[in-house]
């Protein structure tokens, strides 16, 4: 069997959910507990340390809000790509997916400027509890954004040729999940005082 030929196992669907989407849900479930564990650790520390609010006030709410806006918009592109794929319009889906990854790139660029400013002001990973969690949480999330962008570009390359269109929805699901994580990170890291 050549590497590209799919086993029959991959094409069956005893649950009624296509295999690709099923594995995406399980991946998301496993990501929920990874982010959940880290967020729970942060929240219980934060509640015990009211003074972390001082550190939190150094973060730039406007940059965080702009990034939330960027991710929400990229999520819109991702779901429109899913709609295009449902209509068997691969090239349009590919275009929208590339737009979505562009959103990811803007997000990471803004993040880069923010972190540069933070580091210049002397706030690094080891500058105390809040900053350790700030960089770890946002860094883990940023890695997920980066991974999503790369996978999305690969999926888009296939979709442009009208191949593997079922993957468009799956990478979209993942992207929305990453978006939801940020929806909670934004108030936790930028707003709460």
């Amino acid at each position, binding site marked *: 069997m050549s590497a590209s030929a799919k086993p029959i196992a991959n094409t069956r669907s005893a649950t009624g*959910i296509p295999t690709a989407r099923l594995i995406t849900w399980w991946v998301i479930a496993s990501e929920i507990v990874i982010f*959940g*564990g880290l967020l729970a650790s942060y929240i*219980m520390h934060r509640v015990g340390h009211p003074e972390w609010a*001082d*550190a939190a006030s150094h973060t730039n709410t406007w940059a965080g809000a702009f990034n939330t806006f960027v991710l929400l918009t990229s999520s819109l592109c*991702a779901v429109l790509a899913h709609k295009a794929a449902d209509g068997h319009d691969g090239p349009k889906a590919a275009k929208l997916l590339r737009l979505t990854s562009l959103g990811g790139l803007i997000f990471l660029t803004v993040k880069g400027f923010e972190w540069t400013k933070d580091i210049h002001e002397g706030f690094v990973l080891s500058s105390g509890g809040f900053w350790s969690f700030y960089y770890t949480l946002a860094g883990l999330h940023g890695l997920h954004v980066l991974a999503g962008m790369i996978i999305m570009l690969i999926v888009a390359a296939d979709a442009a040729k009208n191949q593997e269109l079922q993957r468009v929805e799956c990478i979209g699901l993942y992207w*929305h999940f990453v978006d*939801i994580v940020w929806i909670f990170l934004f*108030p936790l890291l930028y707003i709460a005082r």
Partner: protein
Amino acid sequence: MTTEAHVHHPNYVKVWAILVVLLLVSVVGSMSHVRAVLLIAAFGVAVVKAYLVAKNFMHITVEKRWVPYLLVMCLLFIAILFAGVAPDVMKHSGLNWNKNPASQSVQSGASAAPKNE
């Protein structure tokens, strides 16, 4: 293999517009100095936003029932983790132990640790 449309596609741009309005609400609310307003603007709105994304973008409400149950189950486990761990970690002293640096940092109101120890 082609994708069969399993969902009705709602007006996504409208959903996105609602999400952006909610974002503005939370930013404006964050300038409030009333703690209750601040917390609702921050976390109440976040929950609503997350629900809107999950419902309209991820179509979780039209997926097989056990999928949302699975995801909620994972959240429940995290809640259990939090409930079991928070009584120890939130406090700075307990049965035969004190976290002196942590409690000092709370009292002084300064950032937790001296840099480059």
